[in-house]
């Protein structure tokens, strides 16, 4: 479905609005994923669909109903249901109403690439075949995926708002498997022609080979260099804290106050939908323009992200960060970008007398949300650094670490990369953390 067609559907849906203010969110998507293991494709899928969500506001009472049946009768019934639910909700004096109409906002360059939208199963299978070839050249087996998708959002409301966004996305995730070691590589992009299965397959294979016969290391406090895929996973667990809701309710470290230093002075974190590595949607899921928000500036907490409701509740500006989920989840910074440093990853390694190089993290969970303590595991390529050189593979370890404390003495590489964790599209460099606490080890 193209945006014209989606907007026609949105207008038709809006015409069934009965009372109060009504918002219509139309989402359509076509996604495909080719998944492989043991150098063969074992899951190969595609799906397409369109959904229409009504949000009806009756004097501070909100009801929401959604359907993917787009005939007139279904749309009319769904609009009615949203209005009925709104009538049953208690009055919420905070709710500011729906956003006003405004001029359309252009999508950032590179957000939509036709080649990605048209990528075929043969294209994905070809990239997978290049990965298999890299594995077979090293006597390994591959597991991973090649994905491509296109999606569009249209937001329309009874206050005259109408805007649309179309985007594409694609990615490769590859884990190469040796008898007693593994190696990982990934690449996410909006342009399918940027996906190089051979290069990524070779990077992962080299790591798998280099980490063979991994040796146990003593748990304890280590200097650790995280590659972007690993550090992005860690950063994802900081992002909730910048939600106005978490701040207000007291579960965020920012509940101790804004304009305070929480990390080292080299840490600057923004939410930026227009970053060239990850161009995204220029407005949020209720149609408010997304602002570029400075979350941490030289270590000092500068701002929260808000949506219409939380901006009104806290008396702050609406930064345009309403998330895709209806309900109480609150605003989210979905496009975090961590400012890079000036040294290459290789320089950071060369300047490390003794430490660990981590390719990827796994199963991170908060242990103490307010204090940003998380636990998790290393996986798929963990190495010992000695005398400025990567010398051998080591067995995986469990960490328990406050993210904020880790960021008090950190250094970042140049050359950031995009990674994906949950709904976050994260742009981050590699990070060298001076003191990172591991608490146990594994036998692999």
């Amino acid at each position: 479905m193209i945006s014209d067609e989606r907007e026609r559907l949105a207008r038709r849906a809006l015409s069934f609005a009965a009372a109060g203010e009504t918002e219509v969110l139309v989402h359509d998507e076509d996604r495909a994923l080719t998944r492989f293991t043991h150098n063969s494709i074992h899951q190969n899928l595609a799906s397409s669909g369109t959904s229409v969500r009504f949000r009806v506001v009756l004097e501070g009472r909100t009801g929401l109903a959604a359907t993917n049946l787009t005939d007139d009768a279904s749309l009319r019934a769904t609009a009615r249901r949203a209005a009925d639910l709104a009538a049953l909700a208690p009055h919420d004096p905070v709710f500011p109403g729906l956003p006003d109409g405004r001029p359309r906002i252009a999508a950032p360059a590179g957000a939509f690439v036709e080649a990605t939208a048209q990528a075929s199963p043969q294209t994905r299978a070809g990239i997978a075949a290049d990965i298999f070839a890299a594995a077979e050249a090293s006597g390994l087996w591959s597991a991973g995926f090649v994905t491509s998708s296109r999606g569009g959002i249209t937001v329309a409301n009874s206050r005259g708002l109408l805007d649309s966004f179309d985007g594409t996305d694609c990615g490769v995730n590859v884990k190469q498997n040796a008898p007693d070691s593994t190696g990982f590589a990934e690449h996410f992009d909006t342009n399918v022609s940027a996906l190089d299965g051979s290069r990524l397959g070779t990077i992962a294979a080299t790591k798998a080979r280099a980490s063979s016969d991994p040796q146990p290391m003593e748990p304890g406090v280590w200097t650790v260099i995280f590659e972007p895929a690993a550090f992005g996973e860690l950063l994802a667990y900081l992002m909730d804290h910048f939600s106005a809701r978490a701040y207000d309710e007291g579960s965020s470290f920012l509940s101790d106050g804004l304009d305070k230093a929480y990390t080292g002075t080299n840490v600057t974190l923004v939410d930026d939908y227009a970053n060239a590595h990850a161009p995204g949607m220029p407005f949020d899921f209720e149609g408010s323009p997304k602002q570029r928000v400075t979350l941490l500036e030289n270590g000092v907490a500068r701002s929260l992200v808000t949506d219409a409701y939380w901006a009104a509740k806290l008396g702050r500006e609406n930064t345009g960060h309403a998330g895709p989920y209806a309900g109480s989840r609150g605003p989210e910074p979905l496009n975090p970008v961590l400012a890079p440093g000036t040294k290459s990853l290789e320089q950071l390694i060369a300047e490390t007398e003794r430490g660990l190089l981590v390719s990827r993290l796994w199963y991170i969970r908060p242990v103490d949300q307010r204090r940003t303590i998380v636990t998790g595991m290393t996986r798929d390529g963990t190495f010992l650094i000695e005398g400025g050189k990567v010398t051998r593979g080591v067995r995986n370890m469990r960490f328990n670490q406050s993210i904020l404390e880790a960021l008090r003495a950190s250094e970042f590489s140049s050359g950031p990369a995009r990674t994906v964790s949950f709904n976050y599209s994260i742009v981050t460099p590699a990070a060298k953390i001076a003191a990172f606490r591991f608490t146990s080890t594994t036998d692999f």
Partner: protein
Amino acid sequence: MSDYVFEAGAQRALDTAVARGAQYADVRFEDGRSESIEVRNGVVAALTDERSCGYGVRAFFDGAWGFAASDDQSDAGFDATAARAVAIARAGATVAALRFAEAPSERYVDTYATPVLIDPATIPVGDRVAFLLEVERAARSAKRVTTAHAGIELWRTAKEFYSTTGSRIAQTIYQSGSVVGALAVGGGEAQDRTYPGDVGLFQSGGWEIVRAARLDENAERIGEEADRLLDAPQCPSEITDVILGGSQVSLQIHESCGHAAELDRIMGWEANFSGTSFLDPAQRGKLRYGSPIVTIELDNTLALGLATVGYDDEGARSTRSDIVRDGLLSGFLMSRDTARTLGLPTNACVRAQGWRDVPMIRMCNLNLLPGDRPFEALFEDVERGVYMESNRSWSIDDHRLNFQFGCQIGWEIRNGKVGRMLKNPTYAGVTPQFWNSCDAIADARSWTAWGTPSCGKGEPIQIGRTTQAAAPARFRNVQVGVGYDD
């Protein structure tokens, strides 16, 4: 109304798939409705009613599967989606060194419906909202509780399955759940409590499941406990005996047995994401997974089980089988393709999140059988230990061995008695050693079908609904108090 509303569309899609060269095909239609209410700090934060209808076509060609899904219910849509599934299967077959699949031959014609005592539709939405507002207010009554929430989820899914072998299966699944929670903040820290368990009580059934949770009788206590936790001493770091509440035992089964026993994971099909497993098919009947009192059954016919259905999403009939029997590894969670590699029949563990999702092995109902003594008797011969309830944090490595879990609340145990409250209780271990340290399980009176409504697996990630029925259990010599360095 007929149970088979999608029959004509399904037949058209199957015919098209065969005409395009599929050697087998099946079609799964789903019409899902999801009603959700969340009340937060005195206001209704979410009041939603969502419906989604569509279908997925699986096509088999030369040992490879293709899957395509759509919500386009026109003839052109059926044709295009079926053709797409075949094209994907053909593309996969061109680069497949291995052949993962064989065309199924089973045929079932049947219907199934979840037993429902109280149809949720008979409970007015206004009454549901009023109930939650009252529950949430009670949870917020303690002094330092800054946020309370209460919620209800009601799901109804009508499914139809058709295959080129002649299967025709219609099912209607009802699942319901509710929860209340409170967050207390003070002195720069936050403590949260939820009830029942960590995510609420989620089971298959209707409004009777919401009633069974008894939110109204427990909301105030939950708020008070969150408040008191702010003043409680930290759980010490030591090796000691641990008694886990039933919902935490459920999570322990889920993470350290359920995912470990998924045969697709063991075969490397999840290697790049969810990981593999420390288990090997050759260990079946040999590996001492746990102590002799540990028996874990797969039972997809379990009353109240969230994964209870008549047939799974590749059209196989629900069954019951051993995964761990008297402490020995006895079986795995399987699909047709994976079971075939062991020369076994499937035990019907295939599920898809919805119509747009490819069916794959999911955990389903995996239950620790109850023990022989009352819950209170677990404490009697514990000289020193910690009792923990309701999960707060969970992490396990990608082979399902090294785990660390945290609970919302703990209590000291001294000389067989429950003592003072402890905050931030955590424990860690290695899967087989931990299950072999289990020396007592409470009896059937405290055995509950704990449902997990949001288990993630697969790529694109799918959210599964599963149950691990369990009673409280005791484990000896466990490392507790991990994660904090002060």
